């Protein structure tokens, strides 16, 4: 039975697409048949992050409008045979998607025996974001340790509890919090919101932190989900998050700062912020 997960945040640029790509690749690595759907009509990017941009022929809008079949539009990943991408449309108008059409696509994916359907939400709380979350069974809320991101995540949690099919059926949406671009050192110095603070404010189950990492840009430059760069800290954090999502008890990493000596502190670039 397919599980539909929306990756959402409200605020843009916090790492929804990066997270969708890595979680989808991670689920596929674990042996689950997984598809990642880009709901950002007009600004598709998931294809680029997953490195399949040159293989896009049809897109989600074509499938919803029944101009192409799902099999024609889905792109199979060349690295992982269990992984598929359904890109967003680049040129069409934003009203190209509708609830019934998206519902048909999700039902068809269930018939094709997918284990996980990951919906990469566009930023904002308008129609596109609401469509991405409408059929979700669970939600992953991506938040940066910034006031604007936390506030927007709270608004999105309100939407998840009101504007989804689950909400209409009176069932509570299970939402998980993923804090991205986190720096344990800066949080320890009081320069950045701590994970505990964000958790206290948003009050949903905690999936983990993804540390601020050079590996994210390094891999997105090449069209590789960062989780496929196994030695990087970000990849390890995503793997941990997936294990927690699957119910494994995984100790949290990247949350507390390492004790650093006088000289490493003195010569660290972060001293710029200390004054």
């Amino acid at each position, binding site marked *: 039975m397919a599980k539909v997960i929306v990756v959402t945040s409200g605020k843009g640029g916090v790492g929804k697409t990066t997270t969708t790509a890595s979680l989808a690749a991670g689920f596929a690595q674990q042996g689950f048949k997984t598809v990642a759907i880009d709901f950002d009509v007009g600004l598709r990017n998931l294809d680029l992050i997953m490195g399949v941009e040159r293989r896009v022929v049809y897109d989600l809008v074509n499938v919803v409008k029944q101009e192409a079949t799902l099999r024609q539009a889905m792109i199979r990943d060349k690295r992982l045979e269990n992984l598929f991408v359904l890109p967003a449309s680049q040129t069409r108008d934003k009203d190209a998607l509708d609830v019934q059409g998206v519902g048909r696509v999700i039902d068809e994916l269930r018939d094709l025996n997918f284990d996980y359907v990951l919906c990469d939400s566009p930023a904002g709380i308008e129609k596109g974001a609401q469509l991405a979350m409408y059929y979700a069974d669970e939600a992953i809320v991506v938040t940066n340790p*910034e*006031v604007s991101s*936390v*506030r927007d995540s*709270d*608004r999105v949690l*309100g939407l998840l*509890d*009101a504007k989804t099919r689950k909400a209409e059926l009176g069932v509570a949406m299970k939402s998980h919090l993923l804090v991205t671009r986190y720096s344990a050192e800066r*949080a320890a*110095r*009081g*320069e*950045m*919101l*701590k994970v505990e*603070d964000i958790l206290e*404010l948003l009050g949903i189950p905690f999936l983990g932190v993804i540390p601020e990492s050079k590996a994210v840009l390094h891999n997105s430059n090449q069209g590789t989900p960062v989780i496929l760069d196994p030695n990087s800290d970000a990849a390890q954090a995503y793997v941990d998050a997936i294990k927690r999502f699957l119910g494994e008890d995984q100790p949290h990493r990247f949350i507390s700062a390492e004790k650093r000596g006088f000289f490493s502190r*003195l010569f660290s670039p972060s*001293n710029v*912020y*200390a*004054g």
Partner: protein
Amino acid sequence: MSTWFKFWKKPENTAQVAKDRLQMIVSRERTACGVGAPGFLPALQQELLQVIAKYERVDLDHVQVSIDRRGEAEVLELSVMLPESGNKETTRTSLRSSILYA
């Protein structure tokens, strides 16, 4: 000397400021957006204003009604900012009253 001093100066704890501001705005928006909040808050705020206006000059911005969650209980908080009587400068006193709600 001041440059050297900076290396030992403790950075300002802006994270705490961020947390405090967020707690304030998030709880206000949760009630304002009506998700999980009773719908009577705007009406209550309006009626309170009418009652208070009989005795004091206040405007709508100075009457705050919110519902917070503290542990198990929900707390209905009414906050009325009164202008200091006979004083043009607006140093205000705040009447705060918290009622345990459910």
